């Protein structure tokens, strides 16, 4: 008998042998690692062959959905995939708004799926309650994400969760991704290639078992209060209608309203932020595109496209292949510079590389996805170009962190200047540069420090730590300091809380949750006695295990957690409060503060023996 909230089983898949096994969920492990993201990290830690290549059979894919997924708590659809990623060489979490995938997984009776080995031929994993099969994917191989997903929906009906890769993943492009239900992206850093390396085209799941909660009365009371709060939010309608567009001025409302077909929500979400748009006129009239945000569809505009309709068409192609758009455009920009300076022979650039041209960008997306001509070099990412044309080419590369292009900051697509936790986090999350708020109040706009304590308390930051994060208690703003490194530690902890439970981390949702409420809900849903200190302790254990897993894989904090040079100087980041240019010594201090606040050695970034003892991780 499993606790409420959990489906109760883990599905183990051995692609090499073509075998599957359904194993009861280890509830003692759950007690230690919460569920969802936390359990994915633990299962990966245990299942991976340490030191393996990311694209080798020894690298597992661990999928999972937390205990709240499948319930009707607001916005609890999150799905996580944990694996070693080929671009960064680190074990990374990959998260997605789960649409129906997580809920169907839970309804099928599984909290997690652990996929190991490598199939000899292309297959997809079919989960229909406890009927689990590996099915020949020969007819799907070579299809786009969109085509694959629709083909499987046609076959299985809806609701059915589909995790699928496109041709870029099949061809092991290290910046390929997978998609959930053809909308939510999974895995910057090359998760698509990991699936491709296993000859795994897709995972399709449907279930009819239901998800129960342990204490229905308490659950209902807490859920009703939470839903009422959301219903009473004065900005609810605006958020439902426009979502994140308000924060990104490069998406004109008029354009959006012309093409908006409808907004789309992950299961259980009252503030759906995904978009379904239809090009209203022009040569691509009638093209319908689903996206995790219409903002993404404007990425080509940031690189020079002038017509939003071309931009949407381009993104339909890039998403179809399953390419990471930021890596793709960053790579194109670097290649163009190397062509201009003659490092890459001009005759290799056929067609001409033009970042403002739909024809050119679609052609190069294809050449990269299929490894054609120069596309074969570019398909190895920034590392491939540098290996092929020499170390000196780094001078024209964009900022790189663990071999990946951060998409926010100086020299990146979204050039916001203030250096808060989201920016520092691009260096300090082992998975590589990823932009997510983690609930931190430094997300986006500069906010007055006075509002920080309320947010920090909501995130579960202990009172003593709030004093370390915000120094100075006078009313003079200039006399105060914000410790971004210490704040990031708690931002990562809050993200871990949300991810392990299954709650969406997007700002417009997680603002309604707080750590105390999370502990109460965890207890009501699962029946596992939990209070805030106990939840904090488990969260600390999860993130520290994530650290240990990557140190075991060879993470070198001193080298790999060092910010790129482009972040400093007059054109670099600015300090969050003062707006003064960020210096490397500022960043180094923040990094040491981050390590120290976690209980890790501030010089080496390695968890101390004392901290490992506290967390019960001395022998994980």
């Amino acid at each position, binding site marked *: 008998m499993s606790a409420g909230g959990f489906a109760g089983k883990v599905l183990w898949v051995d692609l090499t042998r073509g075998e599957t096994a359904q194993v009861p969920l280890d509830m003692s492990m759950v007690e230690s690692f919460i569920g969802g993201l936390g359990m994915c990290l633990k299962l990966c830690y245990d299942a991976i062959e340490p030191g393996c290549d990311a694209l080798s059979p020894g690298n597992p894919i661990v999928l999972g959905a937390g205990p709240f997924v499948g319930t009707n708590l607001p916005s609890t659809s999150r799905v996580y995939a944990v694996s070693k990623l080929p671009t960064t060489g680190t074990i990374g979490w990959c998260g997605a708004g789960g649409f129906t995938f997580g809920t169907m997984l839970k309804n099928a009776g599984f909290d997690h799926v652990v996929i190991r080995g490598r199939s000899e031929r292309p297959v997809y994993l079919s989960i229909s309650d406890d009927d689990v099969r590996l099915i020949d994917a020969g007819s799907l191989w070579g299809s786009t994400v969109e085509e694959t997903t629709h083909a499987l929906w046609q076959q299985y009906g809806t*609701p059915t969760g589909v995790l699928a890769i496109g041709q870029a993943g099949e061809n092991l492009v290290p910046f390929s991704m997978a998609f959930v239900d053809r909308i939510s992206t999974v895995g910057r850093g090359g998760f698509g290639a990991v699936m491709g390396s296993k000859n795994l085209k897709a995972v399709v799941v449907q279930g009819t078992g*239901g*998800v129960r909660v342990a204490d229905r009365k308490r659950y209902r009371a807490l859920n009703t209060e939470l839903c009422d709060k959301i219903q009473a939010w004065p900005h609810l309608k605006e958020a*439902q209608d426009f979502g994140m567009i308000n924060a990104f001025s490069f998406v004109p409302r008029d354009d959006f309203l012309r093409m908006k077909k*409808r907004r789309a*929500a992950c*299961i259980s979400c009252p503030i*759906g932020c995904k978009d379904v748009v239809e090009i209203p006129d022009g040569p691509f009239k009638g093209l319908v595109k689903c996206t995790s945000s219409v903002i993404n569809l404007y990425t080509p505009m940031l690189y020079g496209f002038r017509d939003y309709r071309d931009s949407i068409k381009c993104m339909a192609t890039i998403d179809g292949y399953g390419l990471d758009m930021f890596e793709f455009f960053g790579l194109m920009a670097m290649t163009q510079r190397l062509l201009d300076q003659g490092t890459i022979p001009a005759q290799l650039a056929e067609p001409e590389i033009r970042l403002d041209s739909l024809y050119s960008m679609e052609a190069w997306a294809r050449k990269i996805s299929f490894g054609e001509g120069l596309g074969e070099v570019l398909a190895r990412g920034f590392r491939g170009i540098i290996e092929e044309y020499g170390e000196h080419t780094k001078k024209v590369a964009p900022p790189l962190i663990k071999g990946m292009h951060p998409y926010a900051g100086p020299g990146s697509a979204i050039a916001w200047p203030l250096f808060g936790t989201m920016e520092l986090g691009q260096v300090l999350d082992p998975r590589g540069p990823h932009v997510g708020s983690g609930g931190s109040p430094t997300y986006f706009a500069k906010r007055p420090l006075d509002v920080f304590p309320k947010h920090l308390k909501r995130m579960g930051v202990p009172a003593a730590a709030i004093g370390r994060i915000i120094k100075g208690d006078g009313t003079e703003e200039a006399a105060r300091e914000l410790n971004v490194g210490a704040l990031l530690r708690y931002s990562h902890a809050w993200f871990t809380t949300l991810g392990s439970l299954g709650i969406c981390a997007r700002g417009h949702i997680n603002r309604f949750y707080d750590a105390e409420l999370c502990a109460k809900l965890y207890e009501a849903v699962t029946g596992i006695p939990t209070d805030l200190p106990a939840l904090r302790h488990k969260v600390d254990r999860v993130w520290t295990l994530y650290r240990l897993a990557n140190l075991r894989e060879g993470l070198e904090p001193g080298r790999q957690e060092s910010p790129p040079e482009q972040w400093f100087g007059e054109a670099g980041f600015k300090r969050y409060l003062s707006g003064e240019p960020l210096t490397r010594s500022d960043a180094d201090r923040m990094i040491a503060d981050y390590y120290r606040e976690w209980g890790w050695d501030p010089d080496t970034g390695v968890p101390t023996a004392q901290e490992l003892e506290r967390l019960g991780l001395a022998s994980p």
Partner: protein
Amino acid sequence: MGKYQIDAVPANCAGCLRCELACSDTYTRSFNPSAARIRVVMSGEDCRIDFTEECIECGMCADHCFYGALSKTEKGGDEQ
């Protein structure tokens, strides 16, 4: 027949399935879209909202809709 008339506006539906979750929980004590008496059917990029024969028009689905896709009217009374 139930207490309410349920009106559906599929164009407003975001596909969150909160209605199916609430319905199934009410009648099966578990969150299970396949057991719901309301069905949000996604067809391509469009959606359709159907009710099964077991639906007794209790209005629980409308109570949980945040998007204005479902509303309930007390028979002989006002829309809610």
